[in-house]
């Protein structure tokens, strides 16, 4: 009996292509909207995560002073790190891929008549490893240069473009404030960071060069550490904290006068934001799916009235109540499933286009496709039931008399 009823419902749908397509329009738009919002949102989340991980995977940054999120106060009072701190971390903590002490500042770079405000970073070759930089050309610092604090530098891609265009910058001397510096290497570009700043806009110098010739001190402003793959960032973080508390003689009951921040935290904060946005947009789209369901009910109700005579004929020739109910219910469900499928295809196309336009990766979320399909089928059942019941309970005599 079920098969016959499906057959009847399919015949009715096929017979009324115009009415059927109008009925499913709401569902089509709703499903397409949900899928587009979620897919593009997922892409944006992935993009943010990717950009942050391009800063350096398993990266831990250590700053003197308390966390910027905690109550301030002691930050300025906290003493800076020294090279020895970085060396101690490297020596005593296992599972680290690299430890880079950093002393950075912003400065003017000058070549001939060109003038460019950039960021000077004094560190070691470990910095390249920790921050995932690769050389496009030239070489890293050698030990002599690092020990002596020579006036050599490795420049980022932004500075290369600003000063040299297509020319080869290697061996050229540029001025960084009061020192003249020979370029020994050029870095491959990384592009914009997840924070919207230009990562390539910096110059790397040996740490000693910056300390002695520019800053005039022996301070280390921060230490960047990268953890080996497969080693817990949490554990490394805890080890570093313990070591630094000991070295800096922080008492049992005192707060740290430094803070250790791992990239995982930042990734979570930022992807959490985009994920929330995705959820919100998806929820708005889901409401439109619900409205689509009401549209189905509306048109099914009209169609029951319009088809009263047809229902009368069916009842007279021996259709049972539940067969008429099932016919209309199946019509509603088949229509809404059909709408769901069209919506899914449309949604995939729209999100591919959207991802392309917004330059975010296109990640198809199979879960949301399945969910929105099931939801549209559910909408068919829920909103098809009331009109179907109305049809099934018609009196055949009255229905046949209906004009």
């Amino acid at each position, binding site marked *: 009996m079920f098969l016959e009823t499906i057959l009847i419902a399919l015949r009715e749908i096929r017979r009324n292509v115009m009415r059927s397509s109008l009925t499913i329009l709401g569902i089509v738009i709703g499903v397409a909207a949900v899928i587009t919002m979620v897919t593009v949102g997922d892409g944006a989340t992935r993009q943010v995560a990717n950009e942050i991980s391009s800063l350096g995977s398993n990266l831990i940054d250590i700053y003197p002073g308390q966390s910027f999120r905690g109550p301030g106060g002691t930050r300025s009072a906290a003493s800076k790190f020294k090279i020895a701190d970085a060396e101690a971390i490297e020596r005593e903590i296992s599972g680290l891929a690299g430890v880079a002490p950093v002393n950075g500042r912003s400065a003017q770079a000058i070549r001939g008549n060109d003038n460019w405000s950039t960021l000077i970073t004094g560190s070691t070759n470990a910095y390249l490893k920790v921050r995932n930089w690769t050389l496009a050309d030239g070489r890293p610092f050698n030990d002599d240069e690092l020990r002596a604090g020579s006036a050599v530098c490795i420049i980022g891609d932004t500075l290369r473009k600003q000063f040299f265009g297509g020319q080869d910058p290697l061996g050229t001397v540029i001025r960084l404030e009061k020192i003249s510096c020979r370029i020994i290497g050029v870095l491959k570009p990384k592009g914009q960071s997840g924070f919207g700043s230009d990562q390539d806009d910096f110059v790397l110098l040996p740490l000693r060069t910056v300390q002695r010739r520019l800053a005039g001190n022996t301070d280390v402003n921060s230490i960047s550490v990268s953890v080996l793959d497969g080693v817990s960032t949490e554990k490394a973080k805890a080890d570093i904290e313990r070591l630094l508390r000991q070295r800096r003689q922080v008492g049992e009951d005192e707060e740290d006068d430094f803070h250790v921040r791992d990239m995982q935290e930042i990734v979570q904060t930022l992807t959490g934001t985009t994920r929330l946005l995705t959820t919100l947009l998806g929820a708005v789209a889901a409401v439109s799916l619900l409205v689509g369901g009401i549209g189905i009910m509306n048109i099914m109700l009209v169609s029951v009235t319009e088809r009263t005579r047809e229902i009368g*004929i069916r009842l007279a020739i021996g259709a049972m109540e539940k067969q008429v109910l099932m016919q209309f219910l199946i019509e509603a469900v088949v229509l809404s499933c059909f709408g769901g499928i069209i919506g899914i295809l449309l949604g995939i196309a729209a999100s591919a286009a959207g991802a392309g336009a917004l330059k975010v990766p296109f990640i198809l979320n199979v879960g949301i496709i399945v969910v929105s399909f099931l939801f549209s089928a559910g909408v068919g059942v829920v909103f098809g039931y009331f009109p179907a019941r109305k049809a099934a309970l018609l009196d055949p005599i009255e229905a046949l008399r209906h004009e």
Partner: protein
Amino acid sequence: MMADSLAASENSGPLIELKAVTRRYGSGTAEVTALQGIDVRIEQGDFVAVMGPSGSGKSTCMNILGCLDTPSSGRYRFKGVDVGGLSRDQRALLRRHYLGFVFQGFNLLNRTSALENVELPLIYRGTGARERRQRAGQALAAVGLAGWETHTPAELSGGQQQRVAIARAIVTDPFVLFADEPTGNLDSARSREIMDLLTVFNKDRGLTVVMVTHDPVMAAYARRVIRFRDGYIENEGGREADHVS
């Protein structure tokens, strides 16, 4: 279950028997009595014309005979089974298996081919696709519409539409065909074709026909006429002698 009990009662009494049947609509002071207590017997193979002015109760009687309605009091036995005691769905099954209907306004499904219209009762009976198509084709051929299977009602004349409706009614080989003014929307030539068709089915297949009509010419095709007036049966007389055959 019901089909079994009907089959078992094959030879017990008349096909249709109404006893002291009344039908009242509404309640209290607004109550209207459409049937005042009527007795009707229709034997297997009979051809009965039901006549009477509007509001005389003939439509109400037809609805009860066709198991679309139930009596307020009295008894309706169809092949010995008390229809008054059946549920809505049981009456639907009874209609599906034993009754055929032809209406004044044809009542075919629009935008549906003649073949699909005729197939409809078989779909509800769960007949397989091949047998369904075959039987529907045979029924259309029996009403003289072989070759018109793919035409929709809009592409058929009134007479042809009514013949499709007759094919739909007889495709299940029912015991009784109820025809409610089957020629009411047709000219006299078309009407005679339809009546000839009903006569053929009645004579050749032993199909019992119960037909409501206003037209004495059409009533003359029947073996007997039941006349209604004010909810009573006015006279019930055999018309065998007047029958124009």
